[in-house]
C-alpha cells in the first residue's frame, strides 16, 4: 500500500476529518484504517472500484452505518452517535443516495419540507411549505410545481428534490453518491450547474463517481480507495486521469478505453438480426440490421425508446408490427423463453430489479439457463452445476470467495460479470445489452469491453444500448441513434462524435410530438 499523500491546504479548516476508520462485517473488511480530510467548501471526489469501500465510507458519514474503529469529526466536533438524524440535525451532513428515497405520492414541497414544516406541529402551514420549497428550488435554479406529486417527476428532477431537501435542513456537507448514473448527458449538465452554485454558497460536497470527466471538471481534491484502504489523494489540478485510474485498479489499462479502430466486419450476406419497420411498446417503425461479429450501439435519451427496443426484440414486451429476422429466418419472440431458445441473450439495465436473482447464490445465478444439461432422473445435479458455475465465474474473473456465496454480497461490477457469465452459457448468437457497465468500476468496465471484442471476433452480434456516449463510441462499429421512439440515424463509428450523436438524439427530442 502506498502511503497517502497529504493534502496541502492548511489555510482552510477541514470540514470533515476521518481518522483511522475501519469497518468490518464479520470477516469482511470493508474499510481498513482510512484517514482522509475534506476541506471546508471544497468539492472532494472519492473514487474507487466497486467493492473498494466507497459506499461504506459514505454510509458511515451519513450515519447509516457505525464504524468498527476510528473517528469522524465534522467541523472539529467528533461524531458520537451514528444515525442519520444525528448526522443531519447536529452535524448537518446530508446524503443524496443513488436510490432516491422519496415519498412518491406526496408533493414536491411536502417531500422537501418533510420534518421541518413551518407552522405548528400537527397542522403544518401548507402555503408556507410551498413558498419555502419554491425558494429552495429557486436557489438550485429548478422550476417545478411544488404541488406536483413526486411520482410524476423524472429521475433527474427527483434527484434535485432530494438535494433541495438537504438544503431545507441546512446541510453544510452534501454527499452525492454517483449522482449522474441515472441522468442523461443534458440532465447531468443541469446537475453540474446546481453543484457549482451550491459550492459558491459554501456547501462542502463529497462526490462519488466512476466517471473521470465529471470528477475532473468539478472537484478540487480526489481521494482513491482500493480494497478498503486509502491509496491516494491529490489536488485535482496536480493529477491526471491515468494516474487516478492506475491508483484505483493498481495497474495500467489505458488500452481498453481507446476507441477500437479495427475495420468493421465485411457486410455479411445475411445479417444476424434484421428489423424491418418494427414497432412495439415505446418505439415505432425501426429499420436496423446487426451483422455477425458487429457491435451496434444504440444511443438516445432515456425516454427515446432504446431500452424498449431491446426488450421488444427479446420478447420481454410484445411486438406490435413489422418483421424481425434472425439469420434470415423470421423470428418474433413472444416471450423471453422463445428468445433464449433461439440463443438470444438480454442483459437488463436494471440489474438489481431485473438481472440478479437476489436470494440465490452466485452459482444459481450463473447456471439458471443451463439447468437442463445437468439433470438426471428429473433431479438437478448440484455438484455438476457448481463446477459449471466455478468454471464460468473464473473465465469472467468474477471476484467471489466461493460461488456458493449470495449474489448480493458481490460488488456491482462482479454481479454484472456474473450475469454476463449467465448469458454466455447459452452461447448466444445475438446479445442485447442494456447499460452493460452501469454502476461498474473502471477495472471491470475494461474487462467487459475486452469481452465484447472477443465475442464479436467469435462472430456474436451485439446490440448495446447505453446512456454513456464515450462507452458507445469505444465499443461500437456503428451507432444507431433513437429519439422519441424512432430511429433517427445510423452513424459509422469512424465518423461518430459525441456532438453528432447528441445533436441527433436531442434535435428530434425537441420536436417530439406529445402523444
Amino acid at each position: 500500500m502506498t502511503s497517502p499523500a497529504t493534502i496541502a491546504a492548511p489555510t482552510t479548516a477541514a470540514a470533515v476529518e476521518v481518522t483511522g476508520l475501519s469497518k468490518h462485517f464479520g470477516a469482511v473488511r470493508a474499510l481498513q484504517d482510512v484517514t482522509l480530510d475534506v476541506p471546508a467548501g471544497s468539492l472532494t471526489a472519492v473514487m474507487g472500484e466497486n467493492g473498494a469501500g466507497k459506499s461504506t465510507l459514505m454510509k458511515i458519514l451519513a450515519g447509516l452505518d457505525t464504524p468498527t474503529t476510528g473517528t469522524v469529526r465534522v467541523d472539529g466536533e467528533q461524531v458520537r452517535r451514528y444515525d442519520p438524524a444525528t448526522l443531519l440535525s447536529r452535524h448537518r451532513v446530508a446524503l443524496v443516495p443513488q436510490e432516491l428515497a422519496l415519498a412518491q405520492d406526496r408533493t414536491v414541497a411536502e417531500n422537501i419540507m418533510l420534518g421541518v414544516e413551518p407552522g405548528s406541529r400537527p397542522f403544518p402551514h401548507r402555503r408556507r411549505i410551498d413558498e419555502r420549497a419554491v425558494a429552495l428550488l429557486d436557489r438550485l435554479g429548478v422550476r417545478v410545481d411544488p404541488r406536483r406529486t413526486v411520482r410524476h417527476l423524472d429521475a433527474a428532477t427527483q434527484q434535485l428534490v432530494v438535494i433541495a431537501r438537504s438544503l431545507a435542513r441546512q446541510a453544510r456537507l452534501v454527499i452525492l453518491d454517483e449522482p449522474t448514473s441515472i441522468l442523461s448527458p443534458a440532465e447531468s449538465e443541469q446537475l453540474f450547474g446546481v453543484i457549482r452554485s451550491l459550492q459558491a454558497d459554501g456547501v462542502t460536497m463529497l462526490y462519488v463517481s466512476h466517471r473521470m470527466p465529471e470528477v475532473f471538471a468539478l472537484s478540487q481534491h480526489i481521494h482513491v480507495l482500493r480494497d478498503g484502504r486509502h491509496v491516494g489523494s491529490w489536488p485535482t489540478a496536480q493529477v491526471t486521469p491515468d494516474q487516478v485510474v492506475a491508483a484505483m485498479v493498481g495497474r495500467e489499462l489505458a488500452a481498453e478505453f481507446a476507441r477500437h479502430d479495427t475495420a468493421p466486419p465485411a457486410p455479411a450476406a445475411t445479417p444476424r438480426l434484421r428489423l424491418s419497420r418494427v414497432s412495439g411498446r415505446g418505439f415505432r417503425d425501426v429499420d436496423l440490421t446487426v451483422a455477425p461479429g458487429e457491435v451496434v450501439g444504440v444511443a438516445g435519451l432515456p425516454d427515446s425508446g432504446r431500452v424498449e427496443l431491446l426488450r421488444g426484440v427479446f420478447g420481454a414486451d410484445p411486438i406490435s408490427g413489422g418483421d424481425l429476422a434472425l439469420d434470415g429466418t423470421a423470428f418474433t419472440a413472444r416471450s423471453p423463453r422463445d428468445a433464449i431458445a433461439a440463443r438470444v441473450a438480454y442483459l437488463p439495465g436494471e440489474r438489481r430489479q431485473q438481472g440478479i436473482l437476489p436470494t440465490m447464490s452466485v452459482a444459481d445465478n450463473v447456471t439458471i439457463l443451463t439447468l437442463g444439461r445437468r439433470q438426471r432422473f428429473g433431479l438437478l445435479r448440484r455438484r455438476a452445476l457448481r463446477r459449471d458455475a466455478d468454471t464460468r465465474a473464473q473465465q469472467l474473473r468474477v471476484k467471489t470467495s466461493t460461488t456458493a456465496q449470495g449474489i448480493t454480497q458481490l460488488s456491482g461490477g462482479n454481479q454484472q460479470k456474473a450475469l454476463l457469465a449467465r448469458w454466455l452459457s447459452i452461447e448466444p448468437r445475438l446479445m442485447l445489452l442494456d447499460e452493460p457497465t452501469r454502476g461498474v468500476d473502471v477495472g471491470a468496465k475494461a474487462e467487459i469491453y475486452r469481452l465484447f471484442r472477443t465475442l464479436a471476433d467469435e462472430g456474436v452480434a451485439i446490440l448495446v444500448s447505453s446512456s454513456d456516449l464515450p462507452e458507445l463510441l469505444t465499443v461500437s462499429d456503428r451507432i444507431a441513434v433513437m429519439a422519441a421512439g424512432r430511429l433517427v440515424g445510423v452513424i459509422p463509428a469512424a465518423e461518430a462524435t459525441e456532438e453528432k450523436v447528441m445533436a441527433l438524439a436531442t434535435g428530434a427530442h425537441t420536436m417530439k410530438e406529445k402523444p
Partner: protein
Amino acid sequence: MAQMTAQAAPPAGQAASTTPRSPNPLQRFLHAREASTFLALVVLFLLGTTIAPGFLGTDNFLTVGQQIAQIGIMAIGVTFVIINAEIDLSVGSIYGLGAVVCGLLMTSDVAWPLAALGGIAAGAVAGLINGLVTVGFGIPSFIVTLGTLSVYRGVTLLLSGGSPISLSGSDPNVAEFNLLGQGKLFGLLPMQLVIFALVAVLGTIVLSRSRYGFNTYAVGGSAEAARLCGINTNRVKVTAFALSGTLAGLAGVLGLSFLSYVQGVTGTGMELTAISAVIIGGAALFGGSGTMLGTVIGVAFIGVLQNILNLRGISSFWQTVATGAVIILAVAADTWLRRRSGRR
C-alpha cells in the same frame, strides 16, 4: 462459440470484500438459516425435560408426532407458496373441504381409497383456483385467499348441510380407512407421522433438487428477473397453490380418518398455525428464501411447545397466546442475528 479468451490481465489485487473462509461443518451449520430455529428447538426440548413431567419418553414423542402431522403436511405446501412470495390463507378451509368431501363419499359407500382421493382432489382444485385467480387477475394472493378462505368454508358448510358427518366403525370400509389416521406402522409409528415424513422427504427433494424448486426460489426472489431468464413465472406460482391445496386436502382426509367425524367448521384457524410454522422455520414473507427442513423444525417447535404446556396442565387459551408470542420472538431473533452478522 469456443473458449473465452478475454482474461489476459492479472487479477487486480486481493478483494477485501471476499476474504475466503474455510467453513468447517459446525460453522457451516451455524450459518445455515435453520440454525437459529433448531437451537431454539433444542432449548425448548431441554426446558421440557426439566419442567414437564412425562416429557421424556417414546410414547410422548410419538404423541407429539401424531399431533403435528396434519399441520406439518399443510405447512409443507404453504412453504412452496411463501417462497414464491405469495401467501395462502385458505388452507384451513381447504382442510375442512377435503374432510367433508371425503366424508360424504364414505357415507355414500364409495371405496375408501377413492373417497380419500376425492378429498385430496377437492383440495387440489381449490388450490388451483387460488393460483389461477391470483395470476389471472394479477391481484395479491393475500386478497384472493382471504376471499377463498370464506368461499371454501361456505362451500364446505353447504356440502355438509350444517350437520356433522360421523363414520360408523362397524363398516369394514371405514375400518380400513381409519388405519390411515389411527393405524401404527410396525405397531409403533403412527401412520399419520409416517405420511408426514414421506411428504416432507418428497417436499425436500422437490424444493432443493428439482428444477421446479429452483424456479420457485428464482420467482420468489425476483419475478421479473426470473421471467427474463425464460421461466414461466405464472406456472410456477399456480403449481405452488395447487400443491398447497392438495396437501391441505390430504391433511383433511387424515383428520377425518383420525376422528371418524367432521363438520362444516372443521379446520378453522389451522391456516394460521401452518403459516406460523413456516415463518418460525425461517422463510421470509418477502419470498425467495426458506427451506423444507426449516419448516419441519418450525412444525416440531410448535408441537413441542404445545406438548409442554399440555403436560404442565396449562389451559389451551394460554397455548394460543404462547404460539403467537413465539412467532414474533422467532422472527425478531432471526432478524437480530442476521443484522449482527452483517448479512441482509
